[in-house]
Structure formats: structure tokens, C-alpha cells
């Protein structure tokens, strides 16, 4: 049986012949003696590094999609790393919907894998029970349950008593509830991996064990081959599935590829069988409050967990000493053992078999890393599974294979995209500190608006200290510190920090007063984190390339600002930005903070190699202050001795002017919220001066600091979509009511034009809609967050993408997409405004449905400003 391999290498060899006989590998080398005899091919289309579940899954899916010329290299033996040691739980209990989809696909794949390949995978549908010891945890489970059920995955919220009916050993006395997902399964992950490898090799994939990659060869930013200890292989594509070694492998390149992940030790316990052996289909228990998981294993149990004090390792790269130190550490495991015995007191007399130490790799944001490197074309990565490799293996491999073959995956994988990180997340110290926070987080309660505490204060605005001294509370985005809100002096800080709740947070009034000030007077928000690029050229090249890359018409008079999307071939948003024409040949481009790497890579990829065309990242050169409010005009005109009224400075206009003593400040009449005001792009050395001047002059107009939470409330009540939150690569401008920002007949072709033309004719299948919660009590009910299912006339039609409390409407506002599924075929039909308007809507927050009113256009009557419709700036790229 495969499990024995967990225990000794000797048995691996004894088991091996059986596996070999069932497989039809021809090219596979199975021992070191043989390996030297079969030489590596000189070239291939794809080289995959890593024979764990990720590498084999990518190989499997690539070969399924028709690519045959693939070589998989494994430094040791197949499925011998984390894959061999992991607990083999396949669970769809995930917070992110993309992760949920990957797990669901994996589950279905593994289920039929044995039939497909003839190799036993140990697949057993056990179901899983996630326990809640607290009310907050139960809310968190209910939120997942409502997402699972709209995915068609059966699940049920249970009372403690029902739990004991499902599992014989469990102590339910400290439980408040649980979630039962009957379709979840367990597998032997090593066997799954071998089955995938087997199937892949039948499809023509060559697998070479005991071959290690030393580095990837790159020419002109493209992969050309790999260098191994057994010679070179030329290739077009390289896939880094090296698990916890992926980081080191990425750095070994001449032009390093930053793959931020870091390994931590992870322990689980194996026991001998119980007196009355546990049934193999006993449900898997996940007790996140107790930080443990428990599954049935060979009549006994397998139980591990994610402790509060992880032990990171391999920080300095592969270290022989550390590898040898991978022993059982019982003292470290003690809290988890206590927790296990508390959950199942009947196990006291059960005999221990082994404590397994298997390192797992973790990423800075607890989401896996996949996709193409922003710097090296053809260099793909799939790693950093945060110890959910078995659950994600199938799905992640499928998406990556689609990405390589089709140029993009079939789902929005931006939350997992390697390009959400840059080189700034690749410091070893940062990774070591951050994963120590991430690993416990796996079982920590995930409450809304959670911020990492480690690895902070990396990128800051020059005003950081000033704002901090004035009570700023900070959040981090792409390493940049941004103020959330400002705690007024005299507030009890100790109490404020304990405000992590699914209900009304205690910053409610603070943000409310900031919003009020934005509406009635004037506020300053430091928005320096936004990505800022400058594109200039000697001739018209800059305009030409931008016209091709963006859907709106950029051939506007100097000084104008254009909101536009950067679309892909399907018409989906790759980026959403504001572009100011600074002069005839130079453009200033503002994008969301986390677009810094992605947008850069996209531009670089599509720009002609022309030395007269210059693209520069000027993010660090400017401090951005957003001056929001009706009195912003007064403050700025007093500081610049220039008239700032709409007659002199119309909306969406950009001018370089002096503010205070400082000259050359880029003033733009937009605020990203729909409120009147200005964005000031200030060369950093003037930042403090301009800020001080604004605050002192603004005093008589009631100026105050505000943070992103206020901005968020403002933009959501104005129905502004945010890229990365509301918009993604699968959303077109037509689907979110932005036809007016697409100039199909601007005279030049642009990426995505054909797709939009077609969509315009056929109509859209989803529509961005604003919902106002009707019977929701802000003080007493659970708050919406994002990802809540939307029901129309009782039928599921979509999910929310963001939500906020609108202090103006005194209601919650949710934004989300409405689809129209055919009741029979589940096919997506065209969504018309009429369809939207003629429906009764409900939003499901953790299982409780609230009536909502749907709107396709923002309330203009409630807000008092008179603006022409074409001036409406509907943009926003602020944080969540």
C-alpha cells in the first residue's frame, strides 16, 4: 500500500515494481543507475521542473490540451517532496471563489482518476466537518456555505448534536455549530501525483527523475532553455513547479524571477489503528479554533494543524543542516496535541505511530502563485500552495495549462497571479517574517478588512510620520502603507484595535465624520500608492501605441484626462486607468496600486521595440494628495492665486501649477469618487510643504485628514467600479455601463475592439448593478462584505463584488454582477436593463437574505452637484 512509503524509503522500492508494471512509461528512468544511460532530449516545447502534484498536474493538463512535446524533470523521485508527505485532504471549504473552483475541479478529477489510469489513488469520499467554537466562526462558515451552495456543492450547517451523529469520537461540548460538506474527500496525494504522471506519459510526456535544473536560460527576455545537471534542453516554455525550492530556482536565473514563498515546518501525527478501527469513510474534521485537522487513516487517525508559532526554515536557501534537523518536535506539537485530545478525548489510549515533519510553502498573502513571469516570457510558475496542494492540484494545473496554451485561463485568476507581486516581496527577511503570520492565519478567523501586521512600513509616503502622528490607522497594499482612517484624539485606542467583527465595526462613526467632511467641507487623502507611469516619445509613437492599447480616444487636447480601460482581446479589463495628456507627446498614466507589475508587463509586451518610445515608472517620484470636497476649490485657489472654479478649471482637466511655494505640481480635477475636488501629484521633495500649506490654509474651511475607508464609501455609493475588486479580465466596459468610455469608431483599431463590437450586437450576459439593502439594520445585522450571492426572484443570479455603508443614503450599498441563467440549461442569457429592473432582489449574507433594490445608474438626485453627464467620472481604483 502506498501509505507505507510515508514511512520508509526501503518500502518505496518494494512498492515500486507494482507501480511500474501498471504504468506504461517508456522514457522514464527509475533509478540512478539507469538514469545515466538514458540521455536527455536536446529540446522540447515545454520543460516542467518538479515532479510533485503541481508539476504532474500541469503535465497532465497540457497533454490533455494537445501539447505533446513536454519534458518533466524531477530532482529526486516523483511525488517525493511535500506531495509525498501531505495529509491528502481534498476540501472545497475555501474563502476565495477561484480557490473554491480549483478545489471543486480537483475533487472531480481525482474521483475519476483511478478509473482513467488504473492506478489506485486512495480516493475516498469522506465529507468534511468544519467546527465552530465561537459565534464568529460560525458566521464565517455560514458565509462559505452560502457560496458553496450557489456553486452547486452540497453543504449544510449543523447543530453540535448532529455532528456527533456523523462522527463517533467527537466532543461537541464546546461547539456552537459546524458545517458539513459531504462531497469532500481524502486521497493519497503521492498516488494521485503518480496517476497524473502516468496519464501524462501515456499522452507523450517524458518524465526524467534524478535530474535537477540549475537555471533557466533566457535571451532577450524569453526562455530559450534549461541547464540541468545532465546537460541542456532547449525549450520555449519553462514551468517552475519546484514547490518550496521555487523561490531559489527563480533567483538562480541571470535575470531573477521573483517567486515570493517561504517554507515552514508542518507537523502531523499518525497513530496506530483504534481498537475498533476507524472506518475509512469517517468524515474529516477541521477544527480551526483548535487549529487542527483530523482524518481517518488506516484505522487510526492522521491529525495535524497550523500552530500559532510556526517554524520557518530554508530561509538561507537549501541548507543541509536544516534538512537534517527536520525531526519530530513534540514540544512544538504539544498545543495541537492538547487540542486534539480536547476534541477527541477518547483517543487518550491510542498508540502513537509517528510525528511527521513535512515542510510546506507559504506565500505573503496566503494565496498560491501561478502565471507567467512579468520579466521573462515563457517562464511560468505554479507553487506556494499554503498547504492546500492536494485540494488545488488539479484545478491549478488545469488553469496554468490553459494559460500556456490559450494565452489566458478560463477563469479570473488575478488573485493568484504571480504579477500581483513584484521584486519588493522577494526579500528573505520579509518572507520569513510574513509567513510566520500567514501560517497561523490559515486557521485564524478571517474577518473583513483584515491587515497583515508583519512586513509593514516598507513603502511609505513622505507624509507617513505626519499622518501617523495625527492618528492614522494603516493598511498595506503592494507594500505601500495607506491610511484607513484617522482616530480622533481622545478615543480609546485599546478598545478600537479589538474591533474585528462581522458586524458594524467601531470605526463606523470615525469614517462617517470623514465622509461628512468630504461632503460638506474638504478632506485630504494621501493616495501616493497609486501606480504612475509616464509614456513619451519623440514623435507620435506614444499616442499611437496608447490608442492601440486603450479603448477610449486618447487623441484629446493637451491637459485633458481620459478614463479608459486597457482591454484584452476578449474586451476584458486588463487594467483600468486615468490618462492625462501632459503634452503633445507625453502621457501620464494612473493605475491601481497593485497594477504596478501587471500593467508594466502588459505595456512592455505590446509596445514596439522603439528606442524613441519611452516608458517610465514614476510611482516613487510623486506623492499624491486627493483633495475632496466642495471647499477644495477655495483651498487650492488661495494657495495658488489662480481661479479654480469649474469655469476656469473644468472637470477632468490637468494643469501644472504652483501650490504654496512649490512649483510644478500636477493638479487634476478628479477625485476618484465623483465628489468635487482635485488630485495633486507632487514631486516628493515638495510633499511635506504642500501638505502643511493645505492643512494650514484649509483650517478655516474645516479641512481634515481622511482615509481609504471614507473614499471607499464615497466611491461605492456613487457606483464606481474598482479594478481588481469589481472589474477583472473577464469584465468588459459594456458589462459595467461604460460604453461611453469606449470609442469603437475612434479611427484606429484597439485591442478588444472586435470582441466589443460583437458584444454590442449580441448584448451582454452580465451586468454591473448597484444594490441598496432595504431591510438591513446597520447596527444589528451582519454587514455585507463581498462575494455574497445575489438572488433575483428567488433564483441565484450572481455575486457581489464590493460593498460599503453609504452615509449619505444611510443604507448599505452592494455592487455586483447580475447574470441571467436559463432555468433548464443553466446557460447564460443576455441581460437587458429591463431584466434588471423587473426583479425582486435579495442579498444573502451568511445565510440570511436581505431585500435589495437594484439600480443601473447612480443616484444623482441625492447628491447635490450639478454635472453634465459626460463629465461624470466613473472611475476608481482605490483599495478594498
Amino acid at each position: 500500500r502506498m501509505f507505507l512509503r510515508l514511512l520508509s524509503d526501503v518500502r518505496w522500492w518494494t512498492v515500486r515494481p507494482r507501480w511500474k508494471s501498471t504504468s506504461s512509461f517508456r522514457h522514464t528512468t527509475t533509478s540512478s543507475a539507469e538514469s545515466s544511460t538514458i540521455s536527455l532530449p536536446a529540446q522540447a516545447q515545454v520543460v516542467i521542473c518538479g515532479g510533485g502534484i503541481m508539476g504532474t498536474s500541469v503535465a497532465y493538463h497540457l497533454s490533455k490540451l494537445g501539447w505533446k512535446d513536454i519534458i518533466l524533470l524531477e530532482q529526486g523521485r516523483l511525488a517525493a517532496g511535500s506531495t509525498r508527505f501531505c495529509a491528502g485532504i481534498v476540501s472545497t471549504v475555501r474563502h476565495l471563489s477561484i480557490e473554491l473552483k480549483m478545489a471543486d475541479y480537483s475533487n472531480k478529477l481525482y474521483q475519476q482518476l483511478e478509473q482513467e489510469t488504473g492506478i489506485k489513488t486512495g480516493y475516498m469520499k469522506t465529507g468534511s466537518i468544519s467546527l465552530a467554537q465561537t459565534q464568529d466562526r460560525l458566521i464565517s462558515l455560514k458565509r462559505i456555505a452560502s457560496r458553496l451552495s450557489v456553486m452547486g456543492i452540497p453543504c449544510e450547517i449543523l447543530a453540535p448534536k448532529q455532528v456527533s451523529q456523523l462522527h463517533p469520537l467527537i466532543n461537541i461540548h464546546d461547539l456552537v455549530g459546524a458545517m458539513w460538506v459531504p462531497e469532500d474527500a481524502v486521497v493519497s496525494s503521492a498516488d494521485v501525483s503518480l496517476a497524473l504522471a502516468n496519464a501524462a506519459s501515456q499522452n507523450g510526456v517524458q518524465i526524467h527523475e534524478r535530474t535537477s535544473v540549475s537555471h533557466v536560460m533566457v535571451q532577450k527576455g524569453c526562455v530559450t532553455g534549461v541547464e540541468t545537471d545532465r546537460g541542456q534542453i532547449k525549450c520555449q516554455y519553462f514551468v517552475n513547479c519546484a514547490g518550496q525550492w521555487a523561490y531559489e530556482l527563480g533567483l538562480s536565473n541571470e535575470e531573477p524571477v521573483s517567486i515570493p514563498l517561504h517554507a515552514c515546518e508542518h507537523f502531523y501525527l499518525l497513530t496506530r489503528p483504534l481498537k475498533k478501527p476507524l472506518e475509512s469513510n469517517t468524515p474529516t474534521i477541521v477544527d480551526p479554533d483548535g487549529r487542527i485537522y483530523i482524518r481517518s487513516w488506516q484505522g487510526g487517525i492522521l491529525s495535524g494543524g497550523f500552530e500559532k508559532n510556526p517554524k520557518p526554515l530554508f530561509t538561507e536557501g537549501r541548507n543541509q543542516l536544516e534538512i537534517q534537523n527536520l525531526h519530530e518536535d513534540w514540544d512544538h506539537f504539544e498545543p495541537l496535541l492538547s487540542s486534539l485530545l480536547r476534541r477527541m478525548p477518547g483517543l487518550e489510549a491510542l498508540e502513537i505511530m509517528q510525528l511527521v515533519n513535512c515542510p510546506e510553502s507559504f506565500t505573503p498573502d496566503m494565496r498560491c502563485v501561478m502565471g507567467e513571469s512579468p520579466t521573462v516570457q515563457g517562464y511560468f510558475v505554479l507553487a506556494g500552495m499554503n498547504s492546500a496542494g492536494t485540494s488545488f492540484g488539479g484545478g491549478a494545473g488545469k488553469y496554468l495549462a490553459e494559460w500556456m496554451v490559450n494565452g489566458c485561463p478560463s477563469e479570473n485568476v488575478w488573485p493568484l497571479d504571480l504579477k500581483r507581486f513584484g521584486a519588493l516581496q522577494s526579500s528573505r527577511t520579509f518572507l520569513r517574517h510574513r509567513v510566520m503570520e500567514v501560517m497561523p492565519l490559515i486557521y485564524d478567523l478571517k474577518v473583513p478588512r483584515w491587515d497583515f501586521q508583519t512586513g509593514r512600513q516598507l513603502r511609505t509616503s513622505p507624509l507617513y510620520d505626519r499622518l501617523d502622528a495625527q492618528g492614522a490607522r494603516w493598511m498595506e497594499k503592494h507594500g505601500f502603507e495607506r491610511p484607513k482612517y484617522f482616530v480622533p484624539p481622545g478615543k480609546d485606542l485599546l478598545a478600537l484595535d479589538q474591533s474585528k467583527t462581522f458586524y458594524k465595526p467601531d470605526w463606523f462613526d470615525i469614517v462617517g465624520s470623514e465622509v461628512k467632511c468630504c461632503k460638506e467641507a474638504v478632506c485630504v487623502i494621501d493616495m501616493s500608492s497609486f501606480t504612475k507611469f509616464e509614456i513619451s516619445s519623440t514623435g507620435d509613437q506614444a499616442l499611437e501605441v496608447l490608442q492601440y492599447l486603450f479603448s477610449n480616444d486618447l487623441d484629446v487636447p493637451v491637459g485633458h484626462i481620459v478614463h479608459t480601460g486597457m482591454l484584452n482581446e476578449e474586451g476584458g479589463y486588463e487594467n483600468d486607468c486615468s490618462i492625462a495628456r501632459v503634452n503633445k507627446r507625453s502621457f501620464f498614466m494612473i493605475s491601481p496600486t497593485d497594477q504596478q507589475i501587471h500593467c508594466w508587463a502588459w505595456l512592455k509586451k505590446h509596445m514596439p521595440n522603439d528606442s524613441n518610445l519611452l516608458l517610465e515608472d514614476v510611482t516613487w517620484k510623486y506623492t499624491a494628495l486627493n483633495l475632496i470636497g466642495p471647499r477644495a476649490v477655495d483651498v487650492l485657489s488661495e494657495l495658488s492665486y489662480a481661479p479654480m472654479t469649474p469655469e476656469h478649471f473644468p472637470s477632468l482637466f490637468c494643469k501644472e501649477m504652483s501650490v504654496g511655494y512649490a512649483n510644478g505640481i500636477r493638479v487634476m480635477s478628479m477625485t476618484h469618487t465623483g465628489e468635487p475636488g482635485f488630485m495633486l501629484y507632487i514631486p516628493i521633495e515638495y510633499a511635506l510643504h504642500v501638505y502643511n500649506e493645505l492643512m494650514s490654509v484649509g483650517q478655516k474651511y474645516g479641512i481634515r485628514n481622511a482615509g481609504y475607508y471614507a473614499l471607499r464609501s464615497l466611491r461605492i455609493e456613487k457606483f464606481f467600479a474598482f479594478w481588481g475588486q469589481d472589474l477583472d479580465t473577464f469584465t468588459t466596459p459594456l458589462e459595467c455601463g461604460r460604453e461611453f468610455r469606449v470609442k469603437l469608431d475612434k479611427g484606429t483599431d484597439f485591442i478588444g475592439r472586435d470582441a466589443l463590437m460583437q458584444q454590442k450586437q449580441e448584448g451582454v450576459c452580465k451586468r454591473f448593478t448597484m444594490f441598496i439593502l432595504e431591510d438591513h439594520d446597520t447596527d444589528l445585522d451582519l454587514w455585507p462584505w463581498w462575494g455574497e450571492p445575489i438572488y433575483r426572484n428567488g433564483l441565484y443570479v450572481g455575486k457581489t463584488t464590493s460593498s460599503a455603508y453609504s452615509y449619505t443614503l444611510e443604507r448599505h450599498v452592494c455592487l455586483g454582477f447580475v447574470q441571467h441563467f436559463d432555468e433548464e440549461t443553466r446557460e447564460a442569457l443576455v441581460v437587458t436593463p429591463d431584466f434588471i429592473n423587473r426583479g425582486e432582489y435579495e442579498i444573502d449574507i451568511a445565510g440570511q437574505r436581505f431585500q435589495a433594490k437594484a439600480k443601473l445608474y447612480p443616484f444623482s438626485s441625492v447628491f447635490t452637484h450639478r454635472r453634465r453627464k459626460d463629465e461624470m467620472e466613473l472611475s476608481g481604483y482605490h483599495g478594498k
Partner: protein
Amino acid sequence: MLAASCCDRRMCVCPGPRRIAIPVRSSRLPLFSDAMPAPTQLFPLIRNCEIGRIYSTVCHCHHKHLCCLSPHLAHNHLRCTPQKKLAALCCPKENFNPFIHTRSYVSTPQRFYLTPPQVNSILKANEYSFKVPEFDGKNVSSVLGFDSNQLPANAPIEDRRSAATCLQTRGMLLGVFDGHAGCACAQAVSERLFYYIAVSLLPHETLLEIENAVESGRALLPILQWHKHPNDYFSKEASKLYFNSLRTYWQELIDLNSGETTDVKEALINAFKRLDNDISLEAQVGDPNSFLNYLVLRVAFSGATACVAHIDGVDLHVANTGDSRAMLGVQEEDGSWSAVSLSCDHNAQNENEIERIKLEHPKSEEKSLVKQDRLLGLLMPFRAFGDVKFKWSIELQKRVIESGPDQLNDNEYTKFIPPNYHTPPYLTAEPEVIHHRLRPQDKFLVLATDGLWETMHRQDVVRIVGEYLTGVHHQQPIAVGGYKVTLGQMHGLLTERRARISSVFEDQNAATHLIRHAVGNNEFGTVDHERLSKMLSLPEELARMYRDDITIIVVQFNSHVVGACQNEEF
């Protein structure tokens, strides 16, 4: 009551938060409104809102597991617990109380406060260790050395510590001093008391020798060798004044020469009383130098308790005034630890003290003497240095204050006369002295201010120090390999190991180790880093509400020397 920090840091003459309370009828919540007039009148410097904030944190401070319990519980706890230390509270508004939530869903507390190295740097800032030097590879002293440390809660800290070796007689002096109403008195006592004790112990000839040396301007015989942490300072300005007072004392001793050998117990009592007398006298006489004049007044109007140990061979004397404590750590034959108290607390929990005070005053005052466990309803310790407000007649107080500097005159506290003040003095600095002959099983002595004793039981203190000093913490990693072990057995083994390991590794100083436990212990008696860092990261003005200044000296005895001494004598 609860001026969290002193009204004026520089002056430090306002009432400390803990020791002196303003009388109110009750400390319970429902009656707070009654208490309003007194505090506002007396603390004009505290704004209303601050009182609110301070109050809300007081609630916190009064249940020990503040980090672990839900706010809900905290509130209940508050309602049923009489306020022990802070007799007066005021409740200006209803809405500030953060615990009365409509919901109790508040979840995970913030997790990262201070990193372990930051915690350590705070804990170790004041640690000091002294090892008695060895001669010829042998340590002939009964004392191996001592570890001391202190952790401030007040800003500035009001505790002081002193340690010195007597050079003209044998023996070592160690003491902790807990100041109140400022740190001036504790500072003065920490500088001066050991000189008074040393002088009291000196034989007649040595006193003469010293006096002659001073007379003829020759170099003085050194009396004490101090063992000071760099943060422990002596006042330069007052040294001349202090020296003169001390000289007067030894001159009197020379004149009084009884010819008898000096009894340590008597010497300790005399030294305590004499110093307190000098403090009082210096304040009455004043000083032409306005700075010194103000200093002596601050010393006299503030107060300090003292707990001093004198160790000479197997003779251990502990002289105690107030509510600091000396605790002997005794290792029983089975290796377990027990605590032997070598001092009596002079406070309302000590019936003998209440009896003593009642005997010293007319029967008519019986009811007003001790109220709410405080002397005259105000002072927690029943014996102390300084505190002339409880010693001088009303006339004398008024005279001194009126002729004193303006700063003194402006201070509401100094002008305030305790209620029912009829037959002063109500307070004495006379110590209670306990003599103990050291035995080989007496391993160490812990001297600490009440900041430690109110957070930890003496038995725990002795056990923690004992285990620390004997170092039972070195453990091999466990491996199951080949043995039949059940989960239950393993669990028992691990729990035991963890209890032993706790945080011993981090400390090189027994006093630091003890403070770590005192501040960071959770309900299971193990150090909880989260709690520790939370307690240490409290803002200065809140810290005092959660904990008191803690000062600890741990003296380790040399059992071999003690054993040898014993054998010689029998």
C-alpha cells in the same frame, strides 16, 4: 485617587494613584456620583474626559486576566469586586464604558504588539546582577550574589532599590523602597538609609576614627561599597546636607557610647527612626538654597516604605516598614519549594497593626483611624518614611507650607489636611525586625515591593525563582522511536515539560524572570507572550492602571558556606 500620572511630573508631590486616596463613601459604581465633588476639587488638572478614560481602564486593571476574558465578563467582574487599591472612582459619564457592548462578538484581539526582543529589552532595561567575588577559588560569604530588577508603571518610577556591602563591619545590606506621592522620599531613603544602618552598627572606635578624619580633613574610611545599576542615581546637590545630618548622628552615637556591643536589631530600628527624624527636621528647618529647600520639603511630604535585609554569615535580619515583603525560599527534602515570610505587612490586612494604631490614639478616634483599609481613609501602608502630613501637627504643617516655596503652596495636595486629624503622629517609620538563622535549605531571599506581591502568590514566587535558580529546565527533545506511547501519555509528558521550560531560557536574571511571570502570566500560570507584550506596550499614562511599579531583589545564599558555619558553631 487616580491621577494616573502625577499632576506635574516635575513636582511629583501630588498623591500617587495608589497609596493615598481621597475619602469617598463607597467605591462601588452606583454611588459614584456622590463622590464627584471631592476629586474634581482636588484634581483640577484632570479634565473630565481623562477621568473617563482612566476610569474605564481601571475596570480593566482590576481583574487579573484582562487579556483573556471577554469584555462582557470584565464588566460583571467589576461590578461585584470591591475596589481594593483605588478607593475612589468617579464616573462622569455613562457612555464611555467600552465594555457595555450590545454584542459580545468582538473577536481576536490584535496579535502583534511587541516582538519578543522588544519585550526583552524593556524587561531587561533595569536588570542588575552582582556576584560576590571569590577568594582563592572559594566563596567565603554566605551570599553568592544577587539579581535585581525593576519595571516602572509610574512615570517616573516611584520604587527604589539599594544594595551595598558594609566595609567596616561584616555583612551585606539590600533593600527595596516603594515611594508614594512622588519618588522624592524613596530616593532619599535609598541613598541614606544604609549609611544610617552602617553607622549604627559601627563600633565606638571606628566612629571616633571617622569623626577625627572628618575633623582634620583627612580621607574618610569608606563605609559602604554600593552595587548600583547605572540607572540608580544619587542626588549630588543634597549630599552635603545629608552628610551633615549623618555626621550629627554619629557624633551623638559617640557621645552616647554605651560600651555595649551593637545589636543588629537595635541598630536597624535606630537607623530607621533616626533617618525619618532627620527628614522631618530638615523640612522644618529648611535650607537657604531654594532648590534644596524645595527638595527637602518634597522628600518630607512624599512617603516611602522600606524593606531591608542585613545578611552577615548565617544571621539574616529583615527590617520592614510598610507593605513590601521579604520572602525566604526554602527547598524541602523532596526538592519542592516553600515560602517563609520574613516580614509582616504594615497595612489594614494586619490585625496587629490596627491594634497598635488604636492603642496609640484616644478611643474617640477608633472609628476614624482606619477607613476603607486605609490610615485615616487615605494611606495604604501603616508605617512609612516621610509623609509628614500624617506626623506633624496641623499648625506645623501650615507654618511650613506657608513659609515654603510657591510650588508647594500651589499644590492642593500638600495643603490638604487629612480628615479627623486630632492626635498626630499617626504614622511611624519604626521597622519591625525579624531575625532568622540561615540553614542549608534556605536557598534564596526575595525582597520585593507590593507590585509583585499583589500579582503573584508568595508560593508561586518562590517556586518560580527556585526552579529558575536550580535550572531544571534543560531537556532533551523527545522521540517516540520504537516505544509504545499513547497520545495521553505523550500529552502528560509534554504538558509537564512545557510548564518547566516556560520562559526560563530568556532570562539571565532571576528578578527579570520573576517580573516576566508577574506581568505575563496567564490563567494557567505560564508566560503568555501576547499578554506580556500587551502589558508592556501600554501607554505611559495607562500603565499604572494595570500594574504597579515592581522592584525585586533576589539574594542567593551559598548553602555550603551556610552549612559550614552551622557546623562550626555547634
